[in-house]
């Protein structure tokens, strides 16, 4: 009897052990580090993502389906019709076709500048700060100098200086990137200063990690939300900056962007003629894309500063309480 009980107890212990082993070997789903950094899905984020994805798809796929935007027809300035969804320009070119190509051009500029500016700011903001001492002083001096350089006037001067024949997409992108990385570098420097003095960085140095690994594996992941936010911001700034330049006629030559569209609309007296279909669509796309990126940026801000998330949760809770109170009053 006792023997039997003992054996059942042992069996039970064995089975729990096996269960534990099974759980162990089944490997619990690995909680990915990146997943932790993703923003919570709020209505704002959804709206922002829909805008960005929609406009990006339009820019990427649109040009494949529309007619040639440069074809000149002798129909002149016409309003939207079934043949030309967004009407035609003064020279009879299809506005919708132009819009698709222009969106693609603006997105290209935004992406190139966003990547370049983020790389510059990471280089100057993180690397020098981690090394410290003289390197930090030098890198921070350089970014401070670039910070006080007035962006748009410099861009205008440089763009005006480069002959139009050599003024390609990349020239404009590099010029915009050079004038827009400094602010981000300063923010990164402050963050890196804080992270580099944390114990886990010291611990990885004690463990014998090499400097580049400490930066890339221990420090950089903790800066990802900041970098993402800065990338998004750089893209907005680049698209707006390029539109401004092109509107002034200083943009990339023989490329089509939303800014050049506005430039031609302005030159073609679209506004006095009341040809809204010519200048409203490109303006709207710039505004909506900027809005989408900003909405995404707000969500990224919540990861950088979790307090903001709490504010939202508190507000939600407060609203729920208020609703319940109101419902209670109605009952009575």
């Amino acid at each position: 009897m006792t023997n039997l009980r003992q054996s059942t107890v042992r069996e039970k212990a064995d089975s729990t052990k096996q269960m534990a082993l099974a759980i162990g070997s089944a490997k619990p789903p690995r909680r990915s580090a990146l997943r932790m950094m993703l923003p919570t899905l709020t209505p704002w984020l959804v709206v922002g993502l829909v805008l960005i994805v929609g406009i990006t798809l339009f820019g990427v796929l649109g040009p494949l389906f529309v007619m040639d935007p440069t074809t000149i027809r002798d129909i002149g300035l016409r309003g939207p019709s079934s043949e030309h969804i967004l009407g035609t320009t003064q020279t009879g070119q299809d506005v919708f076709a132009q819009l698709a190509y222009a969106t693609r051009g603006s997105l290209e500029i935004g992406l190139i500048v966003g990547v370049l500016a983020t790389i510059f700011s990471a280089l100057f903001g993180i690397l020098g700060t981690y090394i410290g001492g003289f390197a930090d002083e030098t890198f921070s001096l350089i970014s401070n100098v670039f910070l006080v350089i007035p962006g748009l006037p410099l861009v205008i001067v440089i763009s005006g200086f480069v002959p139009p024949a050599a003024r390609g997409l990349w020239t404009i992108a590099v010029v915009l990137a050079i004038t827009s990385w400094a602010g981000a570098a300063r923010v990164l420097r402050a963050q890196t200063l804080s992270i580099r003095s944390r114990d886990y960085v010291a611990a990885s140095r004690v463990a014998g990690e090499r400097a580049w690994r400490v930066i890339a594996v221990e420090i950089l992941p903790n800066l990802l939300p900041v970098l993402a936010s800065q990338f998004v911001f750089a893209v907005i700034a680049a698209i707006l900056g390029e539109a401004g330049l092109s509107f002034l006629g200083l943009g990339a030559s023989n490329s089509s962007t939303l800014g050049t569209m506005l430039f031609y609309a302005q030159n073609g007296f679209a506004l006095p003629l009341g040809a809204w279909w010519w200048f409203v669509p490109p303006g709207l796309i710039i505004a909506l894309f900027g809005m989408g990126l900003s909405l995404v940026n707000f969500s990224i801000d919540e990861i950088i500063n979790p307090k903001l998330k709490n504010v939202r949760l508190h507000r939600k809770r407060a609203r729920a309480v208020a609703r319940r109170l109101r419902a209670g009053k109605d009952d009575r």
Partner: protein
Amino acid sequence: MTSIHVENLVKDFSVRKGIVRRKFRAVDNVSFDLLPGRTIALVGESGSGKSTIARILARLDSPTSGTIAATLDDGATVPNRLYRRHVQMVFQDPFASLNPFHSIEHHIARPLSIHRVTKGSAATASRVLEMLDRVNLEPPEEFAQRRPHELSGGQRQRVAIARALAPGAGVVIADEPVSMLDVSIRLGVLNLLGRLQREDNLAVLYITHDLATARHFSDEILVLYKGRVVERGPSDDVILDPHHDYTRLLALAAPDPEKLGKVVSSEAAPDRSTLDNTVCFNHFTGEWEESEARVPA
């Protein structure tokens, strides 16, 4: 096993006040030997230079003067590039010493692969589980996949200890390893450290401001005051028979359960303003020693 000989350690920090730069001596002429299987406790208040000594030994800071020599059993000096493999550190704050981005496995696997203790990812993974098992984190498979924020302070500190021991270190510097932990789990972590020390014959430098755990845990105590050693000796002697006024002051600062309800009278306590850190009582010789101030280099 590894031992460390510290001789005449001096560390100056330069303090900038406006445009005037001035030197501040954080550690002054400190010497001791860390031997396998033995624990030395560094005791002192905040700012007495304990953590600076820890950071210098862990090579996070460089000393202004003095020598630190790590030697093996046969008397051979540990070469510089192997130093980190032999000397490891456990940090004070377990909430700051683990990277929130990485899993527990990463923290223990990195020292293993840096020092090529294990070859191949499968061997490393199984050694990680072994280490987690040694520090009583059960089940290790589950803990390995977790991230620091899912662990309690005590569990994190166990991970930090596992990380320190992973490369097979012979010397462990424990910088107030339990001061940030809940009182109820301090003893558990200290006992774990003690067990691992016996198993691996480790040399431990235990840094604390708590005289009680210093006595419980260490063989020898060095009392630091303003960067200098003011009293040294076997732990029981230093605690039960303190000679230097500063040691008495430290002992009085700890609440005594037998005098419950009584305020420590300020008259009985030695006067802080007359504390002298130029003399040191050595319990080994039973004599007062002059701690000569070294001429700044």
